[in-house]
């Protein structure tokens, strides 16, 4: 049972200014923050989950058109982006580890690396979006056209409406993901600043831990988005 320990006497000064008044101990505060972050992440699972549901419905209904649209994505850039993002998860984990073992300066280094990789991801995404715009693959615009045919059915041209649904979901899902990345980069800029000020160390690194959880979650969303969007039907 996780009942809290008896509170300190009202008015006694807490050694750690980070300890908020309504918590009895730092451990209670840390456990509360951690549980709070995990609960927030499950709201994000359900939030993205709605779009994954829409994706599943239409992939099932319009497989051929979805496969054709998927093949029009730049696989090289998508793979590079996946590698970049997974690398950023490593740097986050390393940053937290440095805080745990007291390597103050290295924390900042790893956090900065994380931000750089995150920005690189967003930059590559921007390039991909521009490609889609140039190729007239942006849904809802009058000039939308996905040329070609359903894979392995040369006589079946792509249904433009169904392809537009694919791209609607592509932009909605990767766009929502990118928005979360931007928020993540902003969050990590703040964490980097605090780390630079020497805020984090073996005794206190909760914000790093929870920021890391958020970043890893965004990485996991991409781990699923990549095969589902880029690799629907890539074989001859």
């Amino acid at each position: 049972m996780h009942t809290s320990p008896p509170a300190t006497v009202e008015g006694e000064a807490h050694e750690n200014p980070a300890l908020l008044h309504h918590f009895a101990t730092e451990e209670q505060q840390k456990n509360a923050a951690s549980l709070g972050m995990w609960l927030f992440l499950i709201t994000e699972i359900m939030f993205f989950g709605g779009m994954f549901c829409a994706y599943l419905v239409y992939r099932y209904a319009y497989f051929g058109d979805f496969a054709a649209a998927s093949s029009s994505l730049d696989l090289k850039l998508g793979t590079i982006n996946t590698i970049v993002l997974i690398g950023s998860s490593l740097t986050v984990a390393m940053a937290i580890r440095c805080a745990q073992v007291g390597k103050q300066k290295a924390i900042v280094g790893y956090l900065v690396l994380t931000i750089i990789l995150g920005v690189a991801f967003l930059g590559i995404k921007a390039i991909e979006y521009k490609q889609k715009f140039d190729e007239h693959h942006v849904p809802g615009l009058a000039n939308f056209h996905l040329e070609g045919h359903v894979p392995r059915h040369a006589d079946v041209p792509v249904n433009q409406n169904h392809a537009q649904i694919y791209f609607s979901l592509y932009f909605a899902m990767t766009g929502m993901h990118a928005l979360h990345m931007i928020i993540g980069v902003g969050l990590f800029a703040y964490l980097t600043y605090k780390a630079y000020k020497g805020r984090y160390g073996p005794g206190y690194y909760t914000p790093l831990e929870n920021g890391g959880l958020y970043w890893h979650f965004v990485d996991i969303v991409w781990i699923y988005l990549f095969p589902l969007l880029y690799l629907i039907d890539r074989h001859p």
Partner: protein
Amino acid sequence: MSEHISSVKLYVGIWLALMAGTILTVVVAGIDLGPLNPVMALAIATTKAVLVVLFFMHVKYAHEKLTKLVIVTAIFFFLILLALTMADYTTRLWT
């Protein structure tokens, strides 16, 4: 309170496994496995996700069962959303 501190070796190892999974999923996508293609893609993605959750997000070393319960609950209800919605779409054309 002691938090488990993972070694650099472990983190790099997990990262290498994730890299390998990424390459693997691209390679496998280029091979015709019929209905197994999406299965493989999801299996590899899920393995990668599990590695991130257990080791990067430290769930393997979590003090409480509560963390795992929270995650499992979310996955359960997400799967319910998918399964019951697809129960409609997959049976629409049945007579």
